[in-house]
């Protein structure tokens, strides 16, 4: 929602599906460089980061490169707060983002859905193990 708001403020339309895709051009300036840095930092791919930092510094400048990592590190923490507490979307945000969430495909991240999905998987595996042990 906030990326879309930035686009409205900048009088630009950003491709929000680039957020959930592993590739794709969002329309945000230097998003390929930013994406590579962000994904390596959050994915614990420390070995790749030295080269990525150098490349990003050449393109963005050193302070901007550090600032990309600043935002990435912050959101690597705050997303875990949400993931560990199962908070719902704020009411107005929920209503305002209904179409966007469906289009981008983030409704599958809903905490109730995730709980059901992984608990079902647990049940299936448990049932499978019970069947295997009784037949063995």
């Amino acid at each position, binding site marked *: 929602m*906030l*990326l879309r*708001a*930035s686009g409205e*403020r900048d009088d630009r339309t950003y491709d*929000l599906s*680039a*957020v959930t895709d592993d590739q794709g051009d969002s329309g*945000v*300036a*230097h998003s390929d460089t*930013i994406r590579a*840095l*962000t*994904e390596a*930092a*959050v994915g*614990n791919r*420390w070995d790749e*980061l030295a080269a990525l*930092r150098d490349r990003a510094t050449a393109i*963005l400048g*050193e*302070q*901007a490169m*550090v*600032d990309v*990592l*600043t*935002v*990435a*590190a*912050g959101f690597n*923490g*705050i*997303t*875990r*707060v*949400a*993931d*560990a*507490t*199962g*908070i*719902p*979307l*704020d009411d*107005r*945000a929920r209503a*305002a983002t209904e179409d966007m969430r469906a289009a981008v495909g*983030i*409704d599958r*991240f*809903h905490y109730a859905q*995730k*709980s059901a999905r*992984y608990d079902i*998987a*647990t049940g299936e*595996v448990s049932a499978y193990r019970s069947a295997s042990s009784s037949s063995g």
Partner: protein
Amino acid sequence: MYDTPYPVRPELKRKHLEAWRLIASPGPFLDARERVQIVHEARAALSCDLCRRRLEALSPNAVAGVHDAVSDLHPALVDMIHRVRTDPARMTKSVFEGVLAAGIPAEHYIEAVSVVCTSVIVDTFHNALGLPVPDTLPPEPGPPTGQEPPRVVDADAWVPLTDVAVEDGVFGLPRSPNIARAMGLVPGAVALFFLAFRAHYALRDVPLDISQAQAEFIASRVSAINECFY
């Protein structure tokens, strides 16, 4: 912290150091030793064999075992810490309920979540800059501080949220969005986490050398990777 030629912003350095000191101080429900142990557990999770096997599984809940723990924290708390650190995308309510079922109060859970997530910010930023993670500080002696009963309300989260009047903020968000209310059961947990986080982002006029749109793209991408619905 941050002994590097890279231009780390002074405000961020100061806030991280304050947060690091706060972690090594008694919290509302956990003593300083326990809080520091939580940081050590979060770090140990990255090389934990059970966590690795769970990451490879269809469902983390399908893989039983014992974590490679480095503390004497309750096993249910260790499990939560390792999951939040290594596999936040697949955190489920059953993990939270498992902690409660082990006799650990929700307030302890919240305080531990705050410490883990604060340490994730600090460690991620160090690692991203090619720096070793900082040593934890010696835990201060003394019992947990306790707290005044906070005003909370059931709002369809796993935990009660801070009870606040709904007021409009910016960009269609309320002045106090749910993410700021999520740890409201333990106001000290809110204070610790946002002490570290605030230097990383702003909803508008982000005080960094990147545009707001670039900041939102990064935020959105991390949220997608961690499957953060919020």
